[in-house]
């Protein structure tokens, strides 16, 4: 199973997909692409804080993905 965690005012909103379910994968990919276009950065994260990676494209086998709104300098 894959999980897309989209950071928002509620903490985060989750989209879960089964890599073997094409409809769920398509839905997760659509959310991923929409938010990337809006300036979000996608990170593939691993258990126990092992080094994350920036994702340029959606990967159904990514596992856990965090989408963060854009950053700004203070």
């Amino acid at each position, binding site marked *: 199973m894959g999980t897309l*965690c989209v*950071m*928002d*005012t*509620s*903490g*985060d909103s989750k989209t879960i997909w089964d890599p073997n379910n094409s409809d769920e994968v398509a839905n997760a990919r659509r959310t991923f692409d929409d938010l990337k276009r809006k300036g979000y*950065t996608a*990170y593939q*994260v691993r258990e*126990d*804080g*092992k*080094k*994350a*990676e*920036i994702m340029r494209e959606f990967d159904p086998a990514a596992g856990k993905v*965090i989408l*963060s*709104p*854009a*950053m*700004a*300098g*203070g």
Partner: protein
Amino acid sequence: MWYYGTDPGTTSTTTWQTWTSNTTTATAAEVYAWYNWSTGAAYQPAYISTTTDYSWDRWNPPENVLIRSLPTRALREAQEREERAAYEVAVERKMKAGKVAEELLLETMTPEQREMYEKTKRFHVISSEGKRFEVDCRGQRYHNVYELDAIGKPVVEHCIYQQGNTPLGDNYLAQKLLLECDEKRFRQIANQTQLIG
């Protein structure tokens, strides 16, 4: 004046004149009765500043405002109750969002980071370029990321934050992830302040 007469039902300047002209028990039956009353040192109300016939006219409206405002007050109190309830819901929602964000932050930490965070509300991050940073999670949204030197002393403060009014936990996680994955991009976005001493 309500104590001695009935509600005149008007706020015009003739109220006092009518009352003093028609009453049979008043000792003064002229318009100057009010003038004398309002200028008499022993009885002059402190809040009446005028000494003209219009004193009554000025004194009268606040009484009417008081009487007319009773339904308005009830309405205002109802509005205040609604606003208070909405505020409490918003506070509860914000607290819940803060917990959700903190859970996500903790899930993405190494055991060492988690231990330090739970003890000090700070944690260290090794950046993609191999440098050590400290993220201060004690409540600031920005001015909270410090670059550390070889002995762990803060040498540069980085000011960078997550847009979108997200909870603080999300903000700290975004700082952490960007540092871990792309320190160069982090430096391009953040404003830096060299720390002296």
